[in-house]
């Protein structure tokens, strides 16, 4: 065998595995998305772009995009912001830092299904701790706030079952569950900032902590932020278990929490509409792909330091 072909043998195992477990399934999904295949059927018909047409025209799927986008664009900025804030606060502590790290990281490690049950109790309209706590505030200055006064007069919101609140409540739990992970990533990013840069900033006249943050911390965390934002986006697009735990019957009050992964599961697995399921998968993959491309671009463009 000639020397020049040796590289083929070296990359072959990796290439083979990548084809087998990544490329082939993706193309299989792409192929399926043009058919009306159901599991168990001996054959399937080619339906062209009909599945995609359905996804982009039917109101169910509009709700799916609506819920997914709401969830993603609420959860991502807030988990990134809180993660950074918590990391900065913990970093500034001289004691108990590890304790806070553990506390904030606990929800990341916990099984969300189990946590969902606890939250379901907490958000229960009558016996839940949230609403009974809110009721304690009735008759105080808080009633100047018309929303609060309404709550006292009638009832406080049915957090999980009111279609105006459900997606935000689910987002809140998503934030609670997710920001600890970002905090850990930011803590790692913070430890890699050379201390001398802060000394230099101080010598240069950066007197307030905001100036030091703008001059040193934030730019130096650039690569971490790109990674954290991308990971948060992908994780938020993938939210499923919480929706399944709260609303096994399908996407919450008037499908306001009908997120993509849940739709995929409901169509593809529960209703055995593999064609539609595959089409949703392909759209999901395109989202993730776009995000990854943006991330690569940002890494190359903006945050290439050394």
């Amino acid at each position, binding site marked *: 065998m000639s020397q020049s072909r040796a590289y083929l043998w070296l990359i072959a195992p990796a290439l083979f595995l990548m084809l087998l477990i990544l490329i082939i399934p993706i193309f299989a999904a792409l192929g399926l998305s043009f058919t009306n295949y159901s599991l168990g059927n001996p054959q399937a018909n080619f339906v062209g772009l009909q599945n995609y047409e359905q996804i982009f025209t039917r109101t169910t799927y509009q709700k799916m995009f609506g819920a997914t986008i709401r969830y993603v664009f609420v959860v991502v900025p807030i988990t990134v912001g809180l993660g950074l804030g918590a990391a900065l606060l913990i970093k500034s502590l001289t004691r108990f830092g590890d304790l806070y790290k553990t506390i904030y990281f606990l929800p990341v490690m916990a099984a969300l299904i189990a946590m969902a049950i606890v939250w379901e109790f907490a958000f229960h309209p009558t016996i839940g701790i949230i609403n009974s706590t809110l009721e304690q505030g009735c008759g105080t200055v808080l009633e100047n706030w018309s929303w609060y006064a309404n709550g006292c007069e009638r009832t406080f919101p049915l957090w999980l079952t009111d279609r105006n609140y459900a997606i935000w409540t689910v987002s809140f739990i998503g934030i609670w569950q997710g920001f600890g992970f970002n905090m850990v990533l930011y803590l790692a990013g913070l430890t890699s900032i050379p201390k001398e840069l802060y*000394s230099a900033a101080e010598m*240069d*006249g950066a*007197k307030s902590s905001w100036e030091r943050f703008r001059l040193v911390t934030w730019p*130096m965390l650039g690569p971490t932020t790109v990674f954290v934002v991308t990971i948060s986006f992908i994780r938020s697009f993938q939210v499923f278990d919480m929706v399944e735990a709260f609303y096994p019957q399908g996407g919450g009050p008037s499908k306001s929490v009908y997120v993509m992964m849940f739709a995929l599961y409901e169509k593809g697995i529960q209703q055995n509409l593999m064609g539609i399921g595959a089409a949703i998968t392909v759209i999901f993959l395109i989202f993730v792909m776009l995000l990854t491309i943006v991330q690569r671009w940002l890494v190359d463009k903006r945050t*290439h*330091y*050394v």
Partner: protein
Amino acid sequence: MANIRLSNISKRFGNTDVLDGIDLDINDKEFVTLVGPSGCGKSTLLRIIAGLESADTGTVSINDTDVTGIRPANRNLSMVFQSYALYPHLSVAQNMLTPLKLRDLSFLQRLPMIGPLLAKTEYQTLYQQVKKTAQILKIENLLERKPGQLSGGQRQRAALGRAMVRDPLAFLMDEPLSNLDAALRVHMRSELTQLHQRLKTTFVYVTHDQSEALTMSDKMAVMMKGKILQYGPPDEIYHNPQTTDVARFVGSPAINIIPGSTDETGCVSLLGRSLGIYISSPRTSIQIGLRPEHLSLSEDSSNSFPGIIRHIENLGSDLFYHLEVEGMRQRIVVRTSQSEGRRLPLGSLTCFTAEKDKHLVFDENGNRLTTKSQKLAEVA
């Protein structure tokens, strides 16, 4: 344009005394080097002058004003760090602009995008200052580059530029040359001295390299174990060290310290031979320091000491002979010029003599003793 006065500075980290009652007067426009082995507290002392570290006791004053409690940003000193500490996301020009912006512009004017629109003229004058400094340091062509695209020497210049650009009261430098290769380091030494002459500002320079201290400074402070052992001009430190520690640290190769003795009149003898110099009172154990360049090899065995050549260091211009002398564990280093050294092979027996009046006599604790060429009693 400032004098710096430290009095009774002490600092502890946990149980270790890093600095122990340091007093130091640095005059206006002086180039002062703090030199010592690593861990002697010299960098900590510099950070205390800068205000980045606070001392446990003692005061720092600049221009006769007590600045002990004043934060670094308000002391108007600038510092060059060992790692340069350039902001990696900013170009060299922006790096140099940063201290000017932070001091001379308001919060609004510093805002990105809006700031330059609000304060066009201010930005232009600041940029002129950056350009002027860049010209002095010959880095105008690097202004638009990021630190990551610069070589070590170029980063060094950019860091100097950032320190120079705003005319500080004094420059503090923390081993700024230690990350450069040997040739560049020697070159930057002379550039820094020239810069000092040009700027006419106080420089406080920290280094562990005694040759940097000797070549660059007006005065040097030799520090060890948190104390300043000796403070004075390099010549004074080199030729007149007050302790064996200073004598050993300054000079390369290191000074030869040879045990000596005195007779009852205080007459000093070296390796059993009287030197004709006297100390005030007879002592049982003394040490005699002799620099390698004050020793020479000699053919004549009558007035010299025998030794076997065990190692030869060839430095091109000079040869250093390491001689084994009977009765001594430590080897004696003799410097010779290339011409006279060539002949002697390794392992051969030779003799060495010491120049008269170059003996430095220390007591058993390493403190310097004054010597006279006559017996003291006779003088009195």
